[in-house]
C-alpha cells in the first residue's frame, strides 16, 4: 500500500509540472485516478496493477497537457514552454530577427530625419507619417515570427499602404486641427493593424485578441522602462562628454534619440514575447494595485459632483479629461480581466472594480449632459467632435461591461461573457481610430 501511495504522489508531481494545469485540476485528476483504482481493486486487481491500468486509462500526459493548454491559454502567459508539437509554435530566442527589424527601423527613421532636416525644420509630413515609418517593422517582425505565408504578408501590408495613401494625399491646411488629430490617431489605428500579424491572421479568435491585449499592456510597460533607461544613458553620456568639448552633444541626441525610440519598439516587443512564458505579467499586477485607489477616488469624486452640481468654469478641456479617465478605467477593467482565471467565482476585487466603473460612468454621464448642451452653443470643432465621439465609444463599452459585471456578481452569467464583450468591442476602437484618420478631415474640410 505504501508503494502505491508513493507512486501516486510521483504521478501527481509529474502532472503538476504541465504548464496549464493548476493545483485544483491536479486534485481533480488525482481523485479520478483513485476512483478508477478503487473500482479495479474491487474487481480483483492488486494495488500495483490497479495503478498501472488507471494511469494507462488516464491517457498520454503530453496530449493531456496540450489539451489543457489549448483550453486555458491564459495560463501559458506565465509558464514555461510546452513540449510537443502542435501549439502555436513560439520558439524562444530569435533575437537575431528582432535585431534585424529593430536596426531596420532605426536606420529608416534616421534617413527620414535627415531628409526632413529635423529638428532644424519641421515639415508637416514628418509628424503625420511617423507611425508609418516605425510600425511596419513591428508588423514585419511578427509576420516573420509567426511564419506567415505570402498571402498573409500582403494582407499585413494592406492597412499600411492604405493609411499612407490616405494621410499623404489629403490636403491638410497648415497647422490644422484635423492634421493634429490624425497625427495622434494614426499610430493607434496602425497598432490595430499590427494585431493582424500578431494574431497570425486569425483576427476572429477571441482568445488571440485577449492575448493581443495582454501583449499591448506588457509592451507599453517595457517601452516605458526602456525609454527611462535610455534617457538615463543619454543624459549621462551628455553630462560626461560635455566638458571634453570634443563631441557635439546635440548631434548625439539628434542621431541616437529617434533611432533608439524606433528600434526600441521592436526590442520591447521581442522582450514581451521572450518573457511571456517566464515572468508574471506586470500590467495585471499594477491594475490590482491601482483599482482600489481609483475606486475610492472616483466614488469620492462622484459624490462631490453630485452634491455641488456642475457649476463654475467649464472649460473645453473637461471632455478631454474625462476621455482620459475613461481610457484609464477601461485599462483597469481589461487588464484586471486579462489575468483573472475565468473559473473562479466573483470576489472582492470584482466588486471594487465595479465600484470604480460605476463611479466613472456616473461622473461621465453628468459631464456629458452638460457638455452636449455647451457644444450646441459653441458649435462643433474637430477637437470637440473627436472628444465627444471617443467619450461615447468608451461609455457604451463601460456601461455594458458594468451591466455584465453586475450579472456576474449575482451569479447569473459566466465570466467568459465579460471577456467576450471586451474582445468583441476591440474592432470598434480600431474603426474609431480609422474614422478619425480617414473620415473626419474631409468632413471638416481639412481645417
Amino acid at each position, binding site marked *: 500500500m505504501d508503494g502505491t501511495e508513493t507512486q501516486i504522489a510521483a504521478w501527481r508531481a509529474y502532472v503538476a509540472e504541465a504548464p496549464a494545469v493548476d493545483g*485544483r*485540476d491536479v*486534485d*481533480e*485528476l488525482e*481523485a*479520478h485516478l*483513485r*476512483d*478508477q483504482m478503487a*473500482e479495479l481493486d474491487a474487481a480483483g486487481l492488486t494495488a500495483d496493477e490497479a495503478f498501472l491500468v488507471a494511469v494507462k*486509462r*488516464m*491517457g*498520454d*500526459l503530453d*496530449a*493531456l497537457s496540450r*489539451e*489543457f493548454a*489549448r*483550453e*486555458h491559454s491564459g495560463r501559458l502567459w506565465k509558464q514555461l514552454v510546452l513540449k510537443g508539437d502542435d501549439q502555436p509554435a513560439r520558439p524562444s530566442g530569435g533575437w537575431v530577427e528582432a535585431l534585424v527589424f529593430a536596426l531596420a527601423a532605426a536606420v529608416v527613421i534616421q534617413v527620414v530625419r535627415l531628409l526632413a532636416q529635423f529638428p532644424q525644420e519641421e515639415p508637416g509630413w514628418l509628424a503625420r507619417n511617423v507611425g508609418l515609418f516605425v510600425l511596419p517593422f513591428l508588423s514585419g517582425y511578427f509576420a516573420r515570427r509567426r511564419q506567415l505565408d505570402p498571402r498573409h504578408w500582403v494582407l499585413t501590408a494592406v492597412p499600411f499602404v492604405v493609411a499612407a495613401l490616405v494621410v499623404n494625399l489629403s490636403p491638410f491646411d497648415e497647422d490644422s486641427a484635423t492634421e493634429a488629430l490624425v497625427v495622434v490617431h494614426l499610430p493607434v489605428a496602425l497598432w490595430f493593424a499590427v494585431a493582424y500579424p500578431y494574431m497570425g491572421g486569425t483576427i476572429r479568435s477571441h482568445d488571440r485578441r485577449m492575448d493581443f491585449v495582454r501583449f499591448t499592456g506588457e509592451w507599453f510597460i517595457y517601452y516605458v522602462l526602456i525609454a527611462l533607461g535610455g534617457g538615463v544613458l543619454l543624459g549621462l553620456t551628455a553630462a560626461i562628454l560635455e566638458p571634453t568639448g570634443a563631441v557635439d552633444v546635440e548631434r548625439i541626441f539628434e542621431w541616437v534619440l529617434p533611432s533608439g525610440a524606433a528600434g526600441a519598439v521592436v526590442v520591447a516587443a521581442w522582450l514581451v514575447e521572450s518573457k511571456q512564458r517566464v515572468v508574471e505579467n506586470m500590467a495585471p499586477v499594477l491594475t490590482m494595485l491601482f483599482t482600489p485607489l481609483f475606486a475610492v477616488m472616483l466614488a469620492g469624486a462622484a459624490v462631490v459632483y453630485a452634491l455641488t452640481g456642475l457649476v463654475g468654469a467649464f472649460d473645453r478641456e473637461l471632455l478631454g479629461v474625462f476621455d482620459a479617465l475613461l481610457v484609464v478605467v477601461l485599462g483597469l477593467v481589461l487588464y484586471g480581466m486579462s489575468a483573472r482565471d*475565468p*473559473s473562479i467565482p466573483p470576489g472582492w476585487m470584482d466588486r471594487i472594480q465595479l465600484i470604480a466603473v460605476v463611479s466613472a460612468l456616473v461622473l461621465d454621464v453628468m459631464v456629458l449632459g452638460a457638455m452636449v448642451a455647451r457644444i450646441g452653443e459653441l458649435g462643433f470643432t474637430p477637437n470637440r467632435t473627436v472628444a465627444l465621439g471617443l467619450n461615447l465609444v468608451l461609455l457604451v463599452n463601460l456601461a455594458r461591461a458594468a451591466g455584465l459585471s453586475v450579472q456576474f456578481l449575482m451569479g447569473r*452569467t*459566466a*465570466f*467568459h*461573457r465579460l471577456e467576450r464583450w471586451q474582445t468583441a468591442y476591440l474592432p470598434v476602437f480600431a474603426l474609431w481610430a480609422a474614422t478619425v484618420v480617414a473620415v473626419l478631415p474631409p468632413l471638416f474640410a481639412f481645417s
Partner: protein
Amino acid sequence: MRVHIDKDLVAASSTPLVLAILADGESYGYAIVKRVRALSEGELEWTDGMLYPLLHRLHRQGYVTTEWRTPPKGRRRRYYAITDDGRAALADQRRQWAAVARALGDVWPGSGGLLPALGEA
C-alpha cells in the same frame, strides 16, 4: 466487438454526451466516464484525462456549474451540474446530430434504425 471510432467523431460526440449525462443529474468526472463506457458498451474509447479540459470548457462557456463537495462515503470531488444555457446547447446539439443522421440515413440503404434512435428533433 470493439469497432475503431475516428478520433474526430469521438471528439465531436463528447460534448453532447457529457451534456446529456449531466442533464440527467449532476455528476463528477469519473462517474461520467463510467457512464459513457456503459452507454457505448465499451466501444467509445475515451481517454479519461481528456474529459477534464472538456468539462472546463463547458464551465467557461456557462453550460455547466461546478463545486467541490465531499459525499458522505467518498472522497472530495468536483461535481458538475448542467445550466439552462447548457440545456439549450444540448438541444442545439441534438438538432445538429439529427440533421446529420437524416442525411446519412438517406444515403445508406436499410439503415432505418438511425433516425428512430436519435428521435426527430
